[in-house]
């Protein structure tokens, strides 16, 4: 895998000064991150699902002000032993209903396999718990609608937030404003990729458990790479472009892991937007080359997202001057060289941090999303940026795209899939 840093090193030797596009790094305004009053009472949280994602959530919650993880649920005893070791003060449960019956728990975070979300989320809302549900919200349209309806019915009293975490990320919000203000000119096309080298298989000494944990390789319930990895990129795409896709053409192959699986390990999809613009998505488990990124190509410039929401702008030479690029940091991507912008450079300078260095206080998108969930407990309930409607839309995109990939065909996305009656 070639990291950005490696690219930069290579680029500094290879770059020439002529005919290069300009990359501008875009940074968020720290004032977008609101501080919660320190007097805020802690929120007792139950975590349902203690696999790798659940553990990441548990670890992150430890650093989110106001969050207190008091109970952990997993149906597999080995994971509960792990929970006991990691968070000894949290109670442990094999059945999520025990968490829901605990009146001291105000909120639950759902990090189970996607196809198990529906029953857990609807039961949790019925039990009066605030819910953070990992993305994708569901693995079928029916489940997504059931969750969205349940969340809408109690939206005045309870918080329901989907783990479409980039919507809470100040980095993404900053670039969103930037693209919407027309800085790339007329959007012409977009592309997203998610490359890694991993089998996606999981194992256990318990045969029943093997079947359960390999849900991503079960064609009956898996949304495949476009659902499990692409969901976050497609979420950002329809957010910044301001329109939902109307059709998708897909292809899927098994190129690396011929172990009897049916779920493709390599996929391509082309999404069509109402303006006529297309977005290409590709993902593979065969190669980690060039990692994960998204690019939005416009007539004046291209914006590249990578490394958890960092962004750069590559200007066309004939694009209008924006002003600030004169002061921006220069980053190099092989033969492309450019100017980096720090939207909060003056604030960094005031804090005695080097305004040309990356902001070291940046948190992960998951942290910002969970922090926003905690904010909502203090100031809400209000509809979060990633509410049930966004969850429904993203699930619909993933379900239809996965179907197109599996069938190797073009499918229109019925606008009715995006809305609740």
């Amino acid at each position, binding site marked *: 895998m070639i990291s950005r840093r490696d690219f930069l090193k290579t680029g500094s030797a290879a770059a020439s000064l002529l005919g290069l596009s300009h990359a501008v790094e875009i940074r968020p305004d720290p004032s977008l991150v609101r501080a919660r009053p320190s007097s805020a009472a802690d929120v007792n949280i139950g975590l349902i699902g203690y696999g*790798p994602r659940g553990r*990441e959530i*548990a*670890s*992150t919650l*430890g*650093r989110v*002000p106001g969050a207190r993880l008091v109970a952990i649920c997993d149906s597999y005893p*080995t994971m509960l032993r*792990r929970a006991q070791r*990691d*968070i000894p003060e949290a109670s442990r449960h094999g059945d999520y209903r025990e968490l829901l019956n605990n009146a001291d728990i105000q909120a639950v975070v759902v990090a189970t396999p996607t196809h198990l979300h529906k029953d857990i989320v609807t039961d949790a809302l019925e039990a009066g718990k605030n819910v953070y549900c990992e993305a994708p919200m569901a693995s079928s349209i029916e489940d997504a609608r059931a969750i969205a309806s349940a969340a809408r019915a109690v939206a005045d009293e309870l918080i329901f937030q989907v783990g479409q975490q980039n919507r809470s990320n100040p980095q993404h919000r900053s670039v969103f404003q930037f693209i919407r203000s027309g800085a790339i000119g007329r959007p012409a096309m977009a592309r997203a990729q998610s490359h890694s080298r*991993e*089998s996606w*298989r*999981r*194992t*256990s*000494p318990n*045969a029943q458990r*093997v079947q359960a944990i390999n849900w991503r390789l079960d064609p009956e319930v898996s949304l495949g790479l476009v659902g499990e990895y692409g969901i976050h990129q497609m979420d950002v795409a329809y957010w910044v472009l301001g329109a939902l896709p109307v059709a998708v053409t897909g292809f899927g192959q098994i190129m690396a*892991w011929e*172990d009897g699986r049916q779920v493709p390990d390599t996929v391509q999809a082309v999404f069509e937007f109402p303006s006529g613009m297309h977005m290409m998505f590709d993902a593979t488990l065969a190669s980690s080359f060039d990692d994960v990124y998204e690019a939005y190509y416009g007539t004046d410039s291209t914006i590249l997202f990578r490394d958890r929401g960092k962004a750069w702008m590559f200007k066309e030479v004939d694009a209008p001057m924006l002003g600030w690029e004169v002061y921006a940091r220069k980053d190099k991507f092989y033969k492309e060289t450019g100017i980096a912008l720090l939207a909060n450079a003056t604030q960094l300078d005031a804090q005695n941090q080097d305004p040309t260095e*990356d902001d*070291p*206080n*940046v*948190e*992960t998108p998951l942290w910002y999303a969970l922090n926003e969930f905690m904010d909502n407990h203090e100031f809400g309930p209000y509809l979060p940026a990633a509410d049930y409607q966004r969850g429904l839309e993203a699930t619909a995109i993933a379900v239809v795209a996965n179907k197109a990939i599996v069938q190797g065909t073009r499918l229109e996305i019925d606008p009715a899939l995006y809305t609740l009656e």
Partner: protein
Amino acid sequence: MPLHGPEPVRLALHAMATRFELVMYGGGAADLRAAGEEALQEIRRLEAQLSSYLPNSEVSRINRAACRRPVPVSRRVFQLIQHAAALSAHTQGAFDITVAPLMRCWGFVKGKGHWPDSAALSRARTVTGMEHLVLHEKQGALSFRKAGMSIDLGGIGKGYAIDEAALILRECGVNCALLHGGTSTITTIGAPPGAGSWRVALPVPGKLADHQAPPLAVVDLKDEALSVSAPWGKAFEKDGQTCGHVIDPRTGFPAEGAEMAAVVHESATTADALSTALLVTKPEARARACQNFNKLRVLVAYGPKRVYADGITIHVPTQTIHHHV
């Protein structure tokens, strides 16, 4: 399902500025690989939390802000730092995660090292010591008593990551594996097919590059970890004396004496920390530093002719051997 079979599955990962390699034996190659991927993924996750080189890591956040306010950390990082504090106490301060300012002062953080300015050295010494690190157990936060402090988990993080990865392998049903980070910290699960143990050779200090040279010792490992520390690599010369990159946190000067320390223990975390500690521990203080650990095996080479070993058989003839088995 049982994992038995003759063909090994190998995986590797670049993390924590080193290369981790994993070899596993068993039946289903797909299952072994799945277990290995999950284990190595855990190492990558821990790197993001523990590395001093990543500006967004929890350790970097502590180092930036803990002199001004308690910095909340994730539960596991807090537990690891508690463990580091206990190891520091057990080794009479020979292992110390607050040694980072001294390392910087001696130029070992980003370079090959240099003789420090004496004022800078005395400043660095005043901010080194576990007594200046405050663990706020209730809040799960850390703070520094002195400005200019910083912590570095380099002497324990790799061992910890290896222990955590091995735990995942065991949970996944792997019963035969060897995992190492940069060849200096190794853990083992079971023994390879047809053998009673994994056999790891320790080189004669100074002859690391000479692959023809007979090893100083061969260590048998089964469900145990081995860590080897040496002041080789980063070093500079001053008045004919070699100054290596292992600094004694108590004196502020490079370790004198041991050329290599190897520790076998069930925990790679403990072995990692203790092998570093023994490099800066004088021979007469060694027994005290080791007394709090059960089932320890130790080899310390103080020079080509002076090797202490307890529980490890030395192969190369040396004139003065303190050999306790």
